[in-house]
């Protein structure tokens, strides 16, 4: 792909890509940190994670501003237009992932004060999976790799299954011993938040496919096997 004749435009598009990536890296780290705080029962780390959400929100506003400026001043077309609209939408998903991390950290703060009902096995797995999906969707964004993006969409099923499994397990705890309800509910929320992170990563991957191919695969009953 040749560069824009207008260097300033090229540079601004580069800035936009970089900002999306930085924001993505930040929220991925935030999710990791939140889950670590939960598992290691580290309240200061949980509180630090909650604090970081401001930085994520600043990125959200900054990327919106830059995108709006590019749309108004450059009247982009074709792949440039798709890049900018994709950046705008990805940012919303990343901002929500940041919110999810904050919520996990909040639950971690609450759970630190109570005796754990069980060792955490599925939650770290879900966290790894969701972070991996997020990382891959952002890689797909920079590399414009639709195969990689499609892989992310397909991964979403495994995280949904883990959530379902954890739900049944926690339900059995609650039925057996109502004293566990408040802790089990909090863990269930965490599981749900991680499952949502997977959904947002899937949204990002779908947008990447749109950005590269100009074709939407969103809201289909099944993820297509190939493009």
């Amino acid at each position, binding site marked *: 792909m040749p*560069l824009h004749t207008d260097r300033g435009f090229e540079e601004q598009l580069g800035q936009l890509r970089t900002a999306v990536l930085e924001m993505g890296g930040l929220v991925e780290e935030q999710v990791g940190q939140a889950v670590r705080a939960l598992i290691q029962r580290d309240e200061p780390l949980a509180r630090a994670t909650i604090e970081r959400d401001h930085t994520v929100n600043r990125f959200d506003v900054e990327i919106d501003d830059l995108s709006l400026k590019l749309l108004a001043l450059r009247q982009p*077309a*074709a792949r440039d237009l798709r890049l900018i609209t994709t950046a705008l939408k990805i940012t919303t998903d990343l901002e929500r992932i940041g919110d999810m991390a904050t919520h996990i950290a909040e639950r971690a703060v609450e759970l630190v004060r109570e005796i754990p009902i069980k060792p955490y096995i599925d939650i770290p797995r879900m966290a790894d999976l969701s972070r991996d999906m997020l990382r891959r969707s952002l890689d797909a964004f920079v590399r414009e790799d639709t195969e990689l993006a499609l892989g992310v969409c397909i991964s979403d099923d495994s995280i949904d299954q883990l959530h379902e499994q954890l739900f049944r397990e926690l339900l059995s705890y609650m039925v057996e011993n109502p004293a566990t309800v408040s802790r089990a509910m909090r863990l269930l929320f965490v599981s749900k938040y991680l499952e949502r992170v997977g959904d947002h990563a899937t949204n990002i991957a779908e947008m990447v496919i749109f950005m590269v191919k100009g074709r939407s695969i969103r809201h289909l009953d099944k993820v297509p096997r190939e493009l």
Partner: protein
Amino acid sequence: MLDPGLSRLRPTPSATSEAPTKITVRDLVVHYGGARALDSVSLDIPAHRVTALIGPSGCGKSTFLRCLNRMNDHIPGARVTGQVTIDGDPIYGADVDPVALRRRVGMVFQKSNPFPKSIFDNVAFGPRVHGERDRARLGEIVERTLRQAALWDEVQERLDASALELSGGQQQRLCIARALAVEPEVVLMDEPASALDPIATAKIEELIHELKNAYTIVIVTHNMQQAARVSDLTAYFYLGRLIEYGPTERLFTNPGRPETEDYITGRFG
């Protein structure tokens, strides 16, 4: 089944499918002396649609436009081969009268070129050439076409004033009225708004939207946003060849060819 409310979000009926073909071009080649200006271009232009021709200077878009009413006949050394038909009638036949053809296929140029006559006489010029002498009939034509060209309200009080007293944007609309006065079927526009300010440009573009109900419009423009705004179909020319032709909306969001993509996104190599 889609929610009927959603249909409002659908693009306006795009072009190609439902509109009958007005102009058919096959293997059109144009030489100016030894230089090949247009290289085997084939495309179908639908009736009652706006078709925009875009591309960098020297890409052949104006040459192509001028082939549609045989304006190239006047250029010394120009040689045209291939076939152009309008409603199935070949326009390059030996028996075709170019003057009669240009009555069917009118043209508006980049620089407005009113005659140094009154507003009325400018618009009445074509019908008079074609034999209309009746003052009342001419008056009707002048009013109808000035209304169509969205100029009537601004000039109805001063039809006898010189056309040269009008502003640039008004002069251009006058030229459009003059082109419409002979009741053409096709209107060719070569950069019709490039010398106009944004307000006059917006009026011309609005006018183009109105006119496509009655005419088939082919427009050459350097302004890609203008092509995006006014046209149903866009053809991208480069170095005398037709690179891509399709619904404007698709061409500007997801072009099929890398050359088109580079051009409309401003990567000029």
